[in-house]
């Protein structure tokens, strides 16, 4: 027998400028149900959930919540109202104040503001009970800034439980977790669902959707294109619905690695936080191969990328490009040595949004004679270069003289690819190159990387998406806690163990050395 509807979204629509992010979406959530919301990046999942939680005001449509046996509409655009109605939201980018303790974060907004003092003892006790019941433990008095990602997520969920959430919305909850941590999260959620909680979770990892949800709804281009019970679904069917076409992974001809193009030898970077640390990392990249670097984010990938980009000098060890040791690595020297870099955060590091597309295409080689003559910009040559590259790399937007920030994410990435690949680099560092891109743009990026490898470039692909690594990489390494180890095979579970830091002695590429 079908359980009663606890939450109903009816005809929700939202438009941002000319983009329709959500287009008359209807959705029901039943009591004690786990609903998976699937869709590509930009399909409207997060927009929909933000409307549900009152962070966005919908242009049309309503959110109805069951109270005393009847569905009541929520006032739009008011998170307080959503919280009061029992909706809890766990954002993908955690909404936590890092300078406060976990307990303070849980109580934030739940205590009356004019109060002269806080009643922490009973609060602590109740959080303790919630932790016990849900199986979610977190150190309550630690500053959130010092907590691990997994702990932060648990604090986020506890925040919702503290407010008596009956509906829990999780936006890509496992994106930052190891497979094992994700498993634990789902176990806890199962327990809470058994206790009457209803869950909506956003994901694009098909295997966890199939394993954990009761029902699946698929969004595409802001519309709900399908809804079905999970037991009627299978991978291929859902994937095709998400993308709207059959998915053919890019062909990857066999690799024929040549000479070494990049080598890291015992490189260490000391840093206070674990995410910026590298610990005795060694790696040899050869021409014509793609090395995939898997791992949960925040395990030193950022430091590795900064190192290869020239943004960070190693505290110990050496970096060698095309056989030459880099004595003073800097972005400028690294670029000159033939390393092309595709940064993780393309908006922050990849383009100067206020400058034109044409200018962004030459920003890495301002001193080249094609770009300047005696310090003056060769503006005609710069525009001609832009015309050519935008055509070759299919960069679409309002024109080469328009500011780069007006381009879509996919086109910004194509711009960066054009800038990098046009110089025929020996080494390409691609850090999360397809994150946040829709299928078409991601596919284009993957094909470009494979083409560059065919032309003899060595590629380092850093990605949190194991599927992407498995599809593109010739060899796979795993990063954990600032250390790098080569995976012995291409087995998902084995790589998962490495990602969780369970590097058994024979697997570890570099045994722990005594610190000086």
């Amino acid at each position, binding site marked *: 027998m079908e359980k009663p509807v606890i939450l109903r979204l009816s005809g929700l629509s939202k438009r941002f400028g000319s983009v329709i992010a959500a287009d008359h979406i209807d959705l029901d959530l039943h009591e004690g149900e786990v609903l998976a919301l699937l869709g590509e990046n930009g399909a409207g999942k997060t927009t929909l959930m933000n409307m549900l939680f009152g962070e*966005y005001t919908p242009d049309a449509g309503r959110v109805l919540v069951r109270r005393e046996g009847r569905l009541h509409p929520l006032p739009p655009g008011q998170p307080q109202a959503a919280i009061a109605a029992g909706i809890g939201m766990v954002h993908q980018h955690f909404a936590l104040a890092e300078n*406060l303790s976990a307990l303070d974060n849980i109580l934030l907004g739940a205590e009356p503001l004019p109060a002269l003092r806080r009643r922490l003892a009973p609060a602590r006790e109740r959080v303790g009970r919630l932790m016990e019941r849900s199986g979610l433990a977190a150190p309550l008095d630690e500053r959130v800034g010092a907590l691990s990602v997994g702990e932060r997520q648990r604090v986020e969920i506890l925040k919702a439980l503290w407010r008596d959430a009956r509906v829990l919305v999780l936006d890509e909850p496992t994106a930052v977790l190891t497979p094992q941590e994700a498993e634990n999260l789902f176990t806890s959620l199962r327990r809470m669902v058994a206790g009457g909680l209803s869950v909506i979770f956003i994901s694009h990892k098909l295997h966890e959707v199939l394993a954990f949800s009761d029902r699946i709804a698929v969004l595409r281009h802001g519309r709900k294109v399908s809804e079905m019970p999970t037991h009627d679904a299978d991978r291929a069917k859902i994937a095709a619905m998400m993308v709207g076409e059959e998915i053919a992974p890019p062909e990857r001809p066999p690799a024929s690695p040549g000479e070494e193009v990049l080598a890291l030898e015992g490189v260490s970077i000391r840093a206070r936080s674990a995410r910026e640390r590298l610990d005795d990392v060694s790696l040899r990249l050869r021409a014509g191969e793609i090395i995939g670097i898997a791992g949960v984010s925040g395990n030193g990938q950022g430091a590795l990328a900064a190192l290869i980009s020239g943004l960070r000098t190693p505290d110990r060890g050496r970096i060698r490009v095309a056989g030459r040791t880099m004595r003073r690595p800097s972005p400028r020297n690294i670029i000159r040595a033939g390393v092309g870099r595709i940064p993780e955060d393309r908006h922050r590091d990849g383009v100067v949004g206020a400058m034109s597309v044409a200018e962004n295409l030459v920003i890495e080689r301002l001193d080249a004679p094609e770009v300047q003559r005696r310090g003056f910009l060769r503006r005609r040559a710069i525009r001609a270069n832009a015309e050519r590259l935008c055509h070759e790399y299919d960069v679409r937007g309002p024109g080469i003289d328009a500011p780069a920030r007006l381009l879509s994410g996919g086109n910004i990435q194509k711009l960066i690819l054009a800038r990098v690949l046009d110089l025929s680099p020996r080494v390409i560092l691609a850090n999360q190159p397809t994150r946040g891109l829709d299928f078409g743009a991601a596919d284009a990026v993957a094909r470009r990387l494979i083409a560059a490898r065919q032309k003899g470039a060595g590629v380092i692909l850093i990605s949190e998406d194991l599927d992407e690594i498995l599809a593109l990489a010739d060899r796979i390494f795993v990063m954990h806690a600032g250390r790098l180890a080569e995976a012995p095979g291409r087995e998902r579970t084995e790589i998962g163990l490495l990602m969780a830091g369970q590097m058994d002695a024979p697997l570890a590429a570099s045994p722990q050395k005594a610190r000086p």
Partner: protein
Amino acid sequence: MTELLDIFLNESFWTASLRIATPLIFGVLGALLCERAGVLNLGIEGIFVVGAMTGWMAVWMGAGLWGGVLVAALSGALFGLLHALLTVPLGLSQHVSGLGITLLATSAASFTYRTALPDVKSPPRITPFQPLDIPYLSDIPFLGPVLFQQTPLTWLALAMVALVWWIMARTPLGVALRAVGDNPDAVAAQGLSVYGLRIGAVVGGSALMALGGAFLTMSAFDAFFFGMVNGRGWICIALVIFASWQPGKALLGALLFGMFEALQVRLQTQAGAVVPSQVFLMAPYVLSILALVFAARRADYPRALLKPWFRGQR
């Protein structure tokens, strides 16, 4: 060497230190409140001027001394509100808006003063706050004069340190203020108003800054002069970084500063013949720069400082 010792052993040195520190205490606390909530308030210098002028003028026009204090706080709050509206809901550059507030507040105060008193030769005087001189307590050797012969505004400043500390550390409001300066999304997601908290903090902080100005005309002196604030507001902006945004350290920073100034006044009388007096006049500004350079490396800025936040744009 013995001269230095003499200075430190003299209670008048410590009395002067606390007196000189008082406007800075107000100013640093005010800046702290604003910055903890994520808003830099460079209007501080102008708000000092406004507080000094309006507080004095209210008394000159017949209000009581505490009435003057209230008027000063309210006029500071008003300019704070303008800065808050420009920088919080509109998200405009906090640097430029703050400098604009300083220019506006300074010229508005000067214009009002000149318009009210078009042709006075010397600035008219009021009867300022007198030292409290509490019976018995003031007679305690050393501590008595230092602590209990201060004017009520110095006591108000010390009380404000305790109050701001209490609010920040011990109340839900303080937790929310600290959160909104670190991650406004966290505050919004819990159903609190980011705009409300930030505007409130800037308005309240600006009122405190204005009290620092009011102290100058109603306690330290008894009249309003152009240019009397003389960079004290900017010094507070440096001190708040030195104090790592903590009320206790803000008090400490202001006191150290007051001590240094009191010391240089005394050294000046002793060494005045050898060293030009201007060297001593420069000292507070040099000291502020040094404090800033010293503190900058380990400064743990509120993460959301200077970053505008817009509703519905996560």
